[in-house]
């Protein structure tokens, strides 16, 4: 069962990731990305990380992606004609990808195999919470500072944005 589910999710993730890479339409790219993120969430379920899967769905698929889609929609009036990428650039990109993929896969396969973990254990959500508010309280607090600063920065850039258009060089 797990195996089947893994291959379903893996196929979903891989195919939609490739879709993200090759799709020329930005909306289609966004949809592909959504499927990728959902698939990754599925993988998290398989990896005994249910909480993370939920976060993935809520924050990533639900939040980040919506943000991206907003961005797409705000800027989508643009003509996408003439945005073609030169063939040699595609070749270089695929070359880099191929070399990196083979190098990585080769080295991953040389990693010694690890024992299957005991699947019987309950999901350690209590431990996760304790760790987050215990050992990892400091980064937890720090990330709130990051978010505060980021929020202010993003809001600054986004607000009153059409001011002084004509004053530009």
């Amino acid at each position, binding site marked *: 069962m797990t195996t089947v589910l893994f291959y379903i999710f893996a196929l979903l993730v891989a195919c939609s990731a490739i879709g993200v890479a090759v799709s020329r339409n930005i909306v289609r790219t966004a949809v592909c990305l959504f499927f990728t993120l959902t698939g990754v969430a599925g993988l998290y379920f398989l990896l005994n990380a249910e909480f993370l899967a939920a976060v993935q769905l809520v924050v990533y698929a639900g939040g980040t992606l919506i943000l991206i889609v907003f961005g797409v929609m705000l800027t989508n009036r643009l003509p996408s004609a003439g945005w073609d990428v030169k063939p040699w650039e595609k070749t270089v990109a695929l070359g880099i990808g191929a070399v990196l993929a083979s190098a990585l896969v080769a*080295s991953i396969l*040389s990693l010694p195999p690890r024992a299957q973990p005991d699947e019987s254990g309950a999901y350690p959500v209590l431990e996760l919470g304790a760790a987050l508010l215990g*050992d990892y309280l400091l980064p937890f607090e720090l990330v709130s500072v990051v978010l505060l600063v980021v929020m202010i920065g993003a809001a*600054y850039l986004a607000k009153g944005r059409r001011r*002084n258009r004509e*004053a530009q060089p």
Partner: protein
Amino acid sequence: MSSTLAIIGSPFIPGWDQLGAFLPELVLVAAIVGVLITPFFTERRNFACAVVALVGLVGAFVSVFAVAGEDGAYFRGLLVSDSLAVLWKGLLLLFTAGIVLMWIGTMAEAMREGDGPEFFTLLLGATLGMSLMASTTNLLMIFLVVELASLPSYVLAGFRKTHRLGAEASLKYVLFGAATSSIMVYGLSLAYGLYGTLDLAKIAEQMAVPGAQHVLLAVVLIGLIAGIGFKISAVPFHFWCPDVFEGAHVDVAAFLSVASKGAALVLLLRMVMLIGSAAGFEASAVTVSLAWTLGILGAVTATWGNLAAFAQTNIKRLLAYSSIAHAGYMVCALSLLVARRNEAPAADAAQAVILYLAVYLFMNLGAFTIAALVWRQTGSEQIADFSGLGRRAPIAAAVMTACLFSLVGLPPLAGFAAKLVLMKVLFDNGGWWTVLVFVIGINTVLSLYYYLRIVKVMYLQDRGEDVLGGPILPRVIGVACAAMLVIMLIGFGSLDRLTRDAGRIHDTNSSVAAVK
């Protein structure tokens, strides 16, 4: 300080009593809050925020002295405090305070009233991240603080949001930064996977075991070098640097030139020291290749920066390439740390880097301040518009000259001693490091040309413009920097003793493992 907080009482918060060792960061957070609430009390929001930020930075700087000496690992090894961290924090806070002063002197009028709170929140946030970068050896914390340092910087680069070049600089910065940081996270995830821990000290220990050096470790190290190399702007991760410096305001460029690079250098320094301390030079293929990588990276970076600076016409762009070159010199010295850990030369190399940073801080602040002054008065950043500065603004020109000479490394300025010590440390190790000494030497000769070109423009070309007026504050900052450069040369011995401990953090690092 820990005792002070203990008296306040310990709410049920893990590690509450350990916060005292990070008082400077706490003061910075308080300053961020202060900046955010200041607009509610005053009409002159920009200026008030600047003052609040300045007070916060100075307060944080003062509190650095209070936490000096509280060495050890805190929060179960998430953060460490030692002489290296304390020194860097002191330098960073001093420098950022200088940037705020420079902003008051030259940039304040260029900013729309009301944007101050955002600007200083971002500046202080980035400073917080950069100050923590010197204090951590945990993979999670490394990622977190690098992002905390980077994210506000992206916005700062494009803070002039109606300015095309600013927007372009910002976009390039964020995309390049996102690319490198994502590569770094991928590397970090592999590091976690290989060794099952997030603590770099433990990872380094396991890494030293010959059998435990899997090929994926290369991906880990390359990812780390990419992520940190991006902040240092080492070749080939430097492409953002000239563009961002040119597109950003002078104050932001000045801030990034020292603070961002310095923080990343200190982080890299700590990491290579850890890796080196776990395994000696000959013992491990990892340290050998890392030493070679860093040496080549430094040499290429220095040469690339200097050569590309030759034909620049924009002062900020030129200083950007100059900062790349200087980062290269320091990376050269880092190669010693991996190679000769547990021996005195490695400690000397770490100390040389810190000394170089300390000197570099003042020469860059001075040069950028004068550039800002010229920009404010003429609206131009072209080197050609420095013509006749020797007559139009003799003090500014003299300060600029002093800073440039120090950047070249000419006596009687501190850049000379800093470079001398750096080269001497490399030279003492002999072998291939002698090549690095030659590279730095040749680069110094190369750099002479483009730095002196500015001096030439200032003194020998004169298009007969009027006297360059402007506020007194930037001149005061500039003169203070130039004076520091002279004082630091004379006082180099004291400086050396002051920073003696910076390179000798090995003991506190091994205690990280003990705490956990």
